């Protein structure tokens, strides 16, 4: 490999550990096997009643349970599992002594229905208001719910468990959060503030209200039967995304520091970029300029030309608008080179892991580089004629992959992209 600094004189940021949990399983091995076999982790929800819901399936992680049941508790546990795997691979620091900061992409936290109903029953009345609930909230009986439903609680737990240094940052850029967590880690290392950073994206928030909220915004697929076929990125008959759970964790290090301790280098975060869309709360600017600008900023940050990208791990949510907009903007950025770039969406199999997606897909992008094999976009039976991507449809494809662009776009005008490479560029 080359010098420890990139062409802009900044420390090169490498990945030395990765962990992942999705509805396909726990760990890189299981996930990669199932992902490249084209298996779906989407299933009919069994965690809570589905009566009255328009969308009844999701990519839930049912093989992990937490007690007491809460989405925030599951979110925390998934992050812990993915982080444990990443740290074991990286072999960095001592037990509970990670030598750097934590950047955590996590869903906004709030009191959840099981706990709210428990509180309501404690009021002892059949018609009551919040002020009646307030009378029974204190005195220590529900003290654990204060900590559980603080926004900083998941990061605080991870910081203590893994001994990360300093003030852990919990962040949300909606569906781009996972990518933003990685970007914050890259920036800290480039500034020379840290030699290592732990970047995690996690989301365990498939619960009734979360499902209803996305449903009321008409964002979710309602093709419930069979659930495995619901997520159809780039297909003409796609009708929305499928909510899912999961976590992705990455240990980032300066190349210099990783080399000095003889760590195995799994890949390089060569570039990061973001650009805000101020057009609308949920819709992209019709001209696509913010997404185009985001991808171009990321290429510039990596010092790469569009022709040097040989795979795109798409945001590919399977909402009618996202996939069309993603194609239109990508076509502008990559021009004549676009037909030579195989594109795939992991969300066809694992669903949309929301706050975790950027991190989960960054892990899958690095596994793609490692195995030189691109996971498929399943359920690709009726290609959308308006989307002329070279979609890796239905079966995995062996390919020479040196640089992957992974895109994430979210509500609130959030756009973030990463470029991951096998070797420093």
């Amino acid at each position, binding site marked *: 490999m080359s010098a420890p600094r990139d062409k802009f004189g900044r420390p090169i940021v490498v990945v030395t550990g990765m962990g992942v949990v999705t509805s396909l399983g726990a760990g890189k091995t299981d996930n990669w096997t199932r992902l490249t076999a084209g298996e779906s982790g989407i299933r009919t929800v069994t965690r809570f009643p589905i009566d009255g819901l328009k969308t009844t399936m999701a990519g839930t992680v049912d093989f992990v349970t937490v007690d007491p049941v809460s989405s925030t508790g599951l979110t925390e546990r998934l992050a812990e599992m993915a982080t444990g795997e990443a740290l074991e691979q990286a072999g960095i620091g001592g037990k509970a002594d990670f030598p750097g900061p934590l950047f955590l992409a996590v869903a906004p936290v709030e009191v959840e229905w099981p706990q709210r109903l428990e509180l309501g029953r404690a009021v002892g009345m059949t018609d009551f208001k919040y002020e009646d609930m307030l009378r029974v909230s204190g005195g220590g009986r529900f*003290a654990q719910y204060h*900590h559980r439903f603080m926004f900083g609680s998941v990061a605080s737990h991870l910081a203590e468990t893994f001994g990360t240094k300093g*003030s852990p940052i919990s962040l949300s850029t909606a569906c781009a959060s996972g990518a933003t967590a990685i970007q914050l880690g890259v920036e800290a290392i480039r500034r020379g503030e840290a030699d290592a950073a732990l970047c995690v994206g996690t989301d365990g928030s498939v619960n009734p209200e979360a499902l209803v909220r996305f449903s009321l*915004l008409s964002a979710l697929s309602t093709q419930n039967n069979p659930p495995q076929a619901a997520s159809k990125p780039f297909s003409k008959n796609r009708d929305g995304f499928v909510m899912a759970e999961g976590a992705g964790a990455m240990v980032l290090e300066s190349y210099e520091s990783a080399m000095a301790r003889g760590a195995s280098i799994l890949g390089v975060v060569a570039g990061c970029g973001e650009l805000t869309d*101020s057009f609308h*709360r949920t819709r992209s600017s019709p001209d696509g300029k913010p997404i185009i600008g985001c991808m171009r900023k990321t290429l510039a940050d990596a010092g790469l030309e569009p022709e040097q990208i040989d795979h795109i791990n798409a945001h590919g949510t399977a909402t009618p608008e996202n996939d069309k907009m993603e194609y239109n903007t990508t076509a502008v950025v990559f021009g004549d080179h676009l037909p030579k770039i195989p594109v795939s969406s992991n969300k066809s199999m694992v669903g949309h892991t929301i706050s975790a997606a950027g991190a989960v897909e960054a892990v899958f992008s690095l596994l793609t580089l490692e195995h030189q094999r691109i996971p498929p976009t399943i359920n690709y039976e009726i290609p959308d004629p308006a989307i002329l991507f070279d979609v890796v449809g239905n079966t995995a494809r062996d390919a020479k992959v040196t640089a992957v662009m992974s895109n994430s776009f979210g*509500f*609130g005008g959030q756009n973030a992209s990463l470029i991951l490479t096998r070797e420093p560029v």
Partner: protein
Amino acid sequence: MTESKSAGAKEVWITGIGIVSSLGEGLDAHWDALNAKTINIDDKRFAPYIVHPLAPVSFDAQIPKKGDQRQMEAWQRIGTYAAGLALDSAGLKGNKEILGRMDMIVAAGGGERDLAVDESIMSADAKGNSSPGFLNERLMNDLRPTLFLAQLSNLLAGNIAIVHGVCGTSRTFMGEEAASIDAARIALARIESGQSEIALVGAAHNGERSDLLVLYEFGDFNLKESYAPVWQREGSSGFALGSAGCFLVLESREHAEARGAKPYARLTRVVADLAQRKQPGAVTRSLEAMWPKLGITADSGSLITGATGAEPVTSEEKAFLREHPGFAVRATGTMFGHTLETQFPLGLALAALSISRGALFPPNDPTGLEVEKPDAPDQIVVVGAGHWQGEGMALVEAIK
């Protein structure tokens, strides 16, 4: 501990400040209210709990489209309003070239719930009307479809982008008080290192929410029955939630000078840490460990703290303050209430304002912990220790 790096760093100026709170809106109103020792509380609406309610504000002045206002809940309107004030104060309103590349870090919690929907579902549940699909059906039928967008943490930033056109980058940090300490820390570090030239940083909080009172009541953090200044709550500790929005424009000195911007003060350092508070004294030790990182040159000066009034953290912070008796202390919680994510930006804003006005605002404390400080401050330390976790500190200085 995490700190912004200083070697070879660019100087960072505070060139815009926007505040709206229970004391009013804008810098003059706040300066006058602080000097008059004004405290506005409401002890009836949520009795026995006390809140510092938002002063009457005409949101039209910063959020001209009614449609935009309708898409937001109060916390987002407060924040979008304060962000507009900050941009006005920096002379940037409508400057598309700069706004289009401006970075933004917002510290946010979550938005308002539909309390009536919650109450009717819980009442029905308490009556035993809970068939398997009951919750689903009520949520599907009763929730306003766009309410989610008024609740999502990152949609305060989203609304600021839409209303004011701040659309370089947008990041939302969460995690109560510490979120805004880290927002300031990261924005400062990015500008110092050349990763960013100009950033909008801040937060907003609606303290007039019974669902938030419930959340903090779980941990017995609310001030009840009668109001007392922050340093006088030893008999009945707790915080009175406050409504406030506060945003700052931070930019590199070069960038500010090139556009002829007038600075209020310089933001020199921000440090943050997460003490493991299971051990008594951990907060005192955490604050003490951060102090030398600020690079303070004198053994006397001024200090603005966001001390909550909740225990044990307030007593631990007092123990730290006793080690620095030369510093004149001001607690924003006494006047503004506790505004969670907004408390630290508020401290930075009042520090910059005090420096620019050549005086620290007067003490507002019957216990004598806060003392008069007649001379013009050239350095002000800003302290934040979260009610349950997270500590940080900043140094705001006069520009030399």
